[in-house]
């Protein structure tokens, strides 16, 4: 891309996507609180209609709690095949209008509008096309980078259309919590608060040096850049997932390695099947453990050679679990293989061509 062309990025975020898709086939539910959630005892809400959100029901709210908050809500089990099909339809509409589209989930995408004569008008056309052709509402945020666009798309949901420069974003969200920024999670928010930093404005005004001292040389300056809404990431039109994982939440907490190891094996097997089918390999193998106190722990190990071999993934995952040795009941267990793109993009001399000594 030409450097002189000013970057204009739009973020398209579908409004309550799963619920909206469901409402199309069950229009009689329009206007009522509708919740898409699984049915198991530990299921969480995937999407809530805006009517349901008024009762305090949001994504990731435990389904059981949602039922208590709004006993009159209609609960619908998720139908991901349908959502994927509708998502492809929406993304196709986006591509009809814009050349460079990066799909980042079933219900969101970035558009590169740089170089267009009238980028805002193009984005409005996209919005009305999605409404007209797919019958679904979306919110669009426009900014000089992905971060501004993403936050802007969320600012006036649903049916939002917000255009912000970086400076405007800084001013508009100066009083907001740092947690507003994707990438600043609850733990970081908590740590920032412990240092008296409760707003984005305050974070942006904190010298990088101080942040580096508290959060390290990488995370510290990164937080400062985020607070200033600086973001250099470019639009990746072909998106290759860098990791693949399988996880499961137990209906009843499991305790002890004997109970957990078979689960690790099963997750590793499912995961490796997928990787083998996709002909992908990764170097980093990790586990995720959520304990009964809801604390989540991850452990990972990077090997010298990439793998998608079940035996290898299983033995590393088991070993990580043994070393972590959760002393408490376990709620959720996951297995992950990361660093996938390296093996794919490596093309030529991957690690396989490195010869070994015969020990």
């Amino acid at each position: 891309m030409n450097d002189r062309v000013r970057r204009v990025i739009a973020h398209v975020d579908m409004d309550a996507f799963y619920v909206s898709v469901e409402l199309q086939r069950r229009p009689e539910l329009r206007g009522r609180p509708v919740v898409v959630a699984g049915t198991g005892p530990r299921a969480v809400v995937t999407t809530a209609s805006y009517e349901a959100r008024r009762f305090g029901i949001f994504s990731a709210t435990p389904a059981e709690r949602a039922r208590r908050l709004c006993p009159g809500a209609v609960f619908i089990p998720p139908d991901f095949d349908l959502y994927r099909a509708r998502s492809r339809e929406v993304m196709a509409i986006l591509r009809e209008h814009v050349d460079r589209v990066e799909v980042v989930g079933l219900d969101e995408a970035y558009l590169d509008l740089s170089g267009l004569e009238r980028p805002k008008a193009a984005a409005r056309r996209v919005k009305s096309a999605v409404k007209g052709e797919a019958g679904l509402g979306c919110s669009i945020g426009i900014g000089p980078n992905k971060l501004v666009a993403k936050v802007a798309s969320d600012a006036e949901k649903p049916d939002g259309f917000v255009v912000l420069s970086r400076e405007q974003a800084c001013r508009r969200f100066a009083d907001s919590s740092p947690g507003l920024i994707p990438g600043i999670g609850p733990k970081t928010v908590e740590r920032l608060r412990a240092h008296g930093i409760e707003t984005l404005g305050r974070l942006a005004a904190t010298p990088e040096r101080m942040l580096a001292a508290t959060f390290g040389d990488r995370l510290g300056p990164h937080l400062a850049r985020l607070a200033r809404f600086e973001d250099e990431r470019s639009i990746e039109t072909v998106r290759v997932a860098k990791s693949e994982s399988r996880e499961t939440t137990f209906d009843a907490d499991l305790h002890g390695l004997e109970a957990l190891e078979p689960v690790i094996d099963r997750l590793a097997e499912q995961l490796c099947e997928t990787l083998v089918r996709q002909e992908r390999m990764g170097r980093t193998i990790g586990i995720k453990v959520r304990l009964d106190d809801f604390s989540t722990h991850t452990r990972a190990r990077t090997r010298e050679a990439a793998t998608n071999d079940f035996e290898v993934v299983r033995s590393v995952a088991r070993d990580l679990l043994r070393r972590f040795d959760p002393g408490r009941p376990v709620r959720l267990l996951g297995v992950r293989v990361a660093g996938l793109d390296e093996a794919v993009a490596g093309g030529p001399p991957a690690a396989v061509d490195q010869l070994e000594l015969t020990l």
Partner: protein
Amino acid sequence: MKIDLEKSSFLSALGIAVRGVSTRSAVQTLAGVMLKVDGGQLELQATDLELGVRARVDVNVDRDGSAVVPGRLLLDVVRSLPGDRATLEYRSSQGDVEVVSGPARFHLRTLPAEEFPRLPEAGDASVVKLPAESFVETVNRVARAASRDETRPHLTGVLVSASERQLRMVATDSYRLSVKETPLDAPVEGSLEANVPARTLQELGRITSSTQPEEIAIASLEHQVIFSSGGVALSSRLVEGRFPNYQQLLPESFEHQLRISTPELLEVVRRISLLAQKNAPLRMRFSEGTLDVSAQTPDIGEATESLPVPFKGEQLEIGFNPDFLREGLESAESEEVTLKLISPLRPGLIEASGDGPGSFMYLVMPIRLNV
């Protein structure tokens, strides 16, 4: 437990002990430092179960006893104290340790002491004493070649052996093999052969750089080893499994032997490696009198540079992992190296020609080049 201590000496012992603290264990107590007061001395202990540190420091004792306190927190607290001295008191009824220095007063909740593991003791194990400087220097030359791949635990160690007037360390991750032999001024009493985790030895290097001891005493137990020097003891489990028979890996003869200036080659390697990304090899093409070093990464770019070398005979092109090659040259630590080669798919050997024959050898396996 009640003690009165001098801040600076306590702080340096605590700084060492905290290196043993586990930050990632599910066992909460391991994030703590055990303070143990007995017979006029304070001993600080910390362990992550693989590695254990004990550091002794002189204090004025009011009352013997022990307590486990969060390690990093105690370090931060003591470092920030306003006075030069402080008192520490374990208050069993409150379950905390009170730290008082001048007008500042802290109460730190203790961790369960009964869960804190016992660190191994040397007892009557055989002990070998070695000069600290030679030991650490030898570690620094080979430890990088040890494997960091924990799925191959037997390669994560360094084989340490000492007898007569020689100290030798060997490490390999199966892609390269590093052997350093260091002559000793005085003969060793007894002998030593142990496969020690590379991480332990690197930690030992960090500790001795602050304590600057003359000597390190090494006690070998059945599954453990203990390094003691200047009031600090570092214990570690030994690596399980046999260290590979490395001698059989060294080829008996080579086709080519080239003496090359180390800094010159190292600079070229460092420069050209910038364009050997994403597992791309560093290509070395030898022809009459010249070495062309090149690298190419798809979608990124390529680089090439040549330097004169005393190469004779038919052209030879061989590929190496740029990091492996660079680390070998760096570890040689001599003005000149002898580079020995056989053929593109056989190992290459870097020998330091500076300080006597056979003193440093670094065998490195090539990367197969797809022409």
